Structures are given as structure tokens and as C-alpha cells.
């Protein structure tokens, strides 16, 4: 019986201490901790091994099987936010539709995060990076890890995301009822502590695709152009076709670049029934002029504008948003030489840096 198959049969050999990205020859130089088993509960009854066998021969059958029974791995990237991470993981473990895998990517935390994960969440796998490579590096490696283990869906979350207990189930139900072809990305309503939509993660509806927009609405879904890694459910096929997030973005806008790249020619939806909370101190937007990290917003936004994630028309819209954020920043800080020099450096790096 498929149900009886032990979960660890799907995993690497226990002695294997080096994670290999699926398309890389060289080993990735970070520690690889493998818990005794990947998930606390047995696999879904259809049996993952059978599933993998079918997808090789019958693409249509593979699509049909990517439903509620598909294997889902949640990927949480964290750095020095142990308490928030604890709440996030507790919410993930408590999902009504249980996870098939849970990976914590630790960006070289120094606050005992690794110990906390090992002690309190033995079902979680831990991927420790030897240096802080930002959210982009964390999601890059986490997605490679999950794809190597042939999970069907990758649920990407920041460590300050607290999902409701039905968030994952609702996302998968959204995927099932979505118009064909099956969407590449699904995302949740992201709310702040006071229940308003978090401005950083407000959905960007794709109004120009009128047919898909109407068909999605008929199924209680909102067609989106891009989303953030605060609850994004991504099909593994997206990685096969479009690759991984760009590591050199480090933080901010790596999720926009990636999902916009994937969704340029495919569909993605917001599922209103799926709700998560983004537990930031303030409900600030994506381009927060008060933040010291504005360098990354400015640089990465320019890299996106030079890249291929958006069409020419979309670049005009996105460019307006970027220009507005630059204007607000310069107006707020034009007397601050340190910030202005960082901004100038960001513009230079954004105009000259690699887009892929």
C-alpha cells in the first residue's frame, strides 16, 4: 500500500551532507542538516513515488494530480528573528491541510534559531547557510532543495508570515477550481495585524488579460501580474521552465522579479479565501523611504526594468511606480549625504548590474 511507504525513502541518504542544486555541478558550500523524517505525518495517500512515475510519461495526468493530493513543501527563509519564526512555524505545522515538507532556510542566524528549530520543530528540515545571502539567496537555495526532492508545490513564506490554519487548503482548492491550464502561482490575501490588506503585499491585478481575468473571477479568483514571497504557492514546473529567483538581488523585489518572470506568459491568481498575516512593525509599502534598505529597492527595481520580466507596456507602469518611490525618497533625504550617496550607488548598480 502506498500509505505504508516511509517518508524518509524519498530523502537523501543520511550520510549525504552536501546539498546539490538540481542544475549545478559544484556542491553548494553550506551545512545540510537532515532530520529523521521530513514531515510529522505520513504522505498523502496517493503515494509520492507513484506520482513521480506518472508525471514522466503523462503530462496531463501530472496536471490532474497536482491537486489537493500534490506534495507541498513550505519554504521559510529567516535571519535572527527567532520569536517570529517560532510563530510562523507553529502556524505552518497547524495547517488543516498538512504539509508534506517544511524547510527552514537559516541565513546564518546568530540568535539560536537553528537550535530552536531543531528542539521545537523536529519535523522541519533546516538548511543553514554559512553567510547571510538575503531573502533572494535563501529562496533560491530553498526552492532548489525542494525541487530536487520533487515536491509538486513550493509554498514560499517570509519568517514574519502567520498563515491562518486553512490558508494552504484554500490555496490548493483555488488551484483546483482555476481555469485550465493550471496556474503557475497562487497567492493569499496578505493582511496586517489590524486586518487591513498589507500595503507591501497588495495584489496587482492583471486587467489587460480580459479573458483570463473574467474566467478567473467566475471561479472566485483574481488574476494577478506578480506577487511577493509572503505566501506564494509556486508549481515546481515554474522552476523547470523559468528557473530560480535571482540570488544577486539579495533582498527586496526578488519576488516581484521572479513571479513577474513566471507570470509573463502564464497565469497566477490570488485566492481570497486564503489569508495570511504579515507581522511587520508598521504597515509600510514595498518601497519604504524610511528604510536603510532603500538601496536594494532602487537597484533591484532598475534591474527589473532592464530585464525581461515585464513587457514594454508594463515597464511603463512599473517605471512610474519606481520613479514615484525615487522622488519620495530624494525629497525626504536630499540633505542626508550618506543616504544620497547610497542612492546614487544604487542607481549606478541598477543601470550597470547583471539583469539575470
Amino acid at each position: 500500500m502506498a500509505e505504508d511507504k516511509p517518508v524518509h525513502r524519498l530523502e537523501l541518504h543520511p550520510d549525504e551532507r552536501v546539498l546539490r542544486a538540481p542544475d549545478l555541478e559544484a556542491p553548494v558550500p553550506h551545512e545540510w542538516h537532515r532530520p529523521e523524517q521530513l514531515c510529522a505525518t505520513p504522505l498523502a495517500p496517493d503515494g509520492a513515488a507513484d506520482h513521480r512515475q506518472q508525471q514522466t510519461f503523462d503530462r496531463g495526468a501530472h496536471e490532474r494530480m497536482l491537486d489537493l493530493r500534490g506534495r507541498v513543501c513550505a519554504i521559510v527563509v529567516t535571519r535572527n528573528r527567532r520569536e517570529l519564526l517560532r510563530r510562523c512555524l507553529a502556524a505552518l505545522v497547524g495547517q488543516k491541510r498538512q504539509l508534506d515538507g517544511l524547510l527552514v532556510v537559516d541565513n546564518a542566524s546568530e540568535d539560536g534559531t537553528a537550535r530552536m528549530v531543531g528542539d521545537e520543530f523536529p519535523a522541519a528540515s533546516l538548511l543553514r547557510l554559512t553567510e547571510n545571502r538575503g531573502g533572494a539567496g535563501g529562496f533560491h537555495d530553498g526552492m532548489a532543495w525542494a525541487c530536487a526532492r520533487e515536491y509538486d508545490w513550493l509554498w514560499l513564506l517570509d519568517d514574519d508570515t502567520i498563515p491562518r490554519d486553512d490558508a494552504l487548503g484554500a490555496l490548493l482548492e483555488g488551484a483546483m477550481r482555476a481555469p485550465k491550464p493550471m496556474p503557475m502561482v497562487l497567492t493569499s490575501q496578505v493582511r496586517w495585524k489590524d486586518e487591513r490588506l498589507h500595503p507591501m503585499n497588495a495584489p496587482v491585478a492583471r486587467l489587460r488579460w480580459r479573458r483570463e481575468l473574467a474566467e478567473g473571477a467566475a471561479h472566485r479568483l483574481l488574476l494577478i501580474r506578480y506577487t511577493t514571497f509572503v505566501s506564494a504557492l509556486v508549481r515546481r514546473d515554474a522552476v523547470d521552465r523559468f528557473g530560480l529567483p535571482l540570488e544577486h538581488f539579495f533582498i527586496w523585489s526578488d519576488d516581484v522579479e521572479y513571479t513577474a518572470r513566471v507570470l509573463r506568459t502564464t497565469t497566477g491568481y490570488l485566492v481570497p479565501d486564503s489569508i495570511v498575516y504579515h507581522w511587520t512593525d508598521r504597515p509600510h509599502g514595498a518601497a519604504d523611504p524610511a528604510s536603510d534598505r532603500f538601496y536594494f529597492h532602487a537597484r533591484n527595481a532598475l534591474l527589473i526594468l532592464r530585464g525581461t520580466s515585464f513587457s514594454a507596456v508594463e515597464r511603463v507602469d512599473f517605471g512610474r511606480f519606481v520613479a514615484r518611490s525615487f522622488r519620495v525618497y530624494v525629497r525626504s533625504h536630499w540633505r542626508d549625504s550618506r543616504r544620497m550617496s547610497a542612492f546614487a550607488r544604487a542607481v549606478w548598480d541598477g543601470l550597470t548590474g547583471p539583469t539575470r
Partner: protein
Amino acid sequence: MKTGAIFVVAPTPPSDLSRQSVAVAKTYVGMGALSRAVAGGCEWVWLLGAAARPRADALGLLLEAAPEAGVTAGLAVDAGGRLLVEQLPKVTARAPEELVSLAARSLLPIRSTPFANVLVRRDCFDRHGMPDRRYGRWAPVAWSASVLCERVGYLVPASVVELEVEGSDRPGLHDCRAFARMLRTGAWTRGDAVGALIASGGRVRIER
């Protein structure tokens, strides 16, 4: 849901109205049908395209979806069930919060719509008059854009009507004035105008 009288207005007689769960009081067809229907004292006017075959409960879904709306529009498909994109209402950008809550109700906010499958409150005609003929083929779009500046309107994708497709009906040079008027009065955005040009297929018909 309790409603006042509903009149149907269409260029040619619709079929299968008996499949609707909501009773239709009267049907007006042909030239001047809309004026006669509005003068007839109804509360709602259901505007349909040519040779329309409303699917089961298309009218009831429009009525119940959003009672607060002045205009609710459904989908139009051809005989093969393919969505007629040119008959789709234009969806408008709204605050994300509103978009999400509407999506949860299977609705989308609109800013204009052709008259393929549209339910309109009669008081919209009282306030905004009849569609202006000077807008030519785009008169319904211009009229609905004007109404929807003041009232809310929604796309209800669950309501579907089958239409007979008129294959060769493309904008021609004789539509230039109406085209310019649409652009000048703001009934269209520049994007809409580009879309209409593309819809002409680059093969603008010249008529003497």
C-alpha cells in the same frame, strides 16, 4: 429577491427566455426599443445582443449578484461556448481591498460595457438619457462609461448569454468621428483607443 418589472431590449428577438427563474414582463425588439421600454415604466432593463440565447438563470444571477449596482454585465459567448472578448466589459482598477472582496463574490468592477448582456436600473436612463447616436457603434460603451462615473457597476461572470457572431462587422472610416468623440470625451482611455484600432484588424473598411 423582490424586484420591479423587468423589460428585455434586444435588436432581434431573444430565445429561451422561459428558462429564466425571474419573470420578464415585456420584450422590446428593434429600432427605438430602448426608448419604448424606458417609457414603459419598468424598474430594470435587460439589454441583450442580436439573436441572444440566455443560459439558464442568466438574468437571476445579474439581479442577485450586486443589488447596489446600477449596471451589472454578464458574459457573452458564441454558439461554440467561446468567450466573445470584444463584448466583455472594461474592468476598472480599484483599491486592492475592494478588488479582493469583489473577487471573493465572483465580481469585478467595470467602467464601461457594450450591450451584450447588461442589466440596467431604469433610473440610470432617467438621469443620463439615452445612448448618444453620435458615438456610433460605441454609443453603449460611451453611455455606460458616463453612468459608471457616478454609479457602481460589476461584471458577473456567472451570467452567460449566447450570441450570434457578426463576423465582418469591423470599424470603418465612417466611424472616425465617433472614434474621435470617444477619445475626446474621455469615454475611452488611450489604451482603449489603441485596442479599438487593433480590433479593426488593420483592415479598415472604406465605404463610399
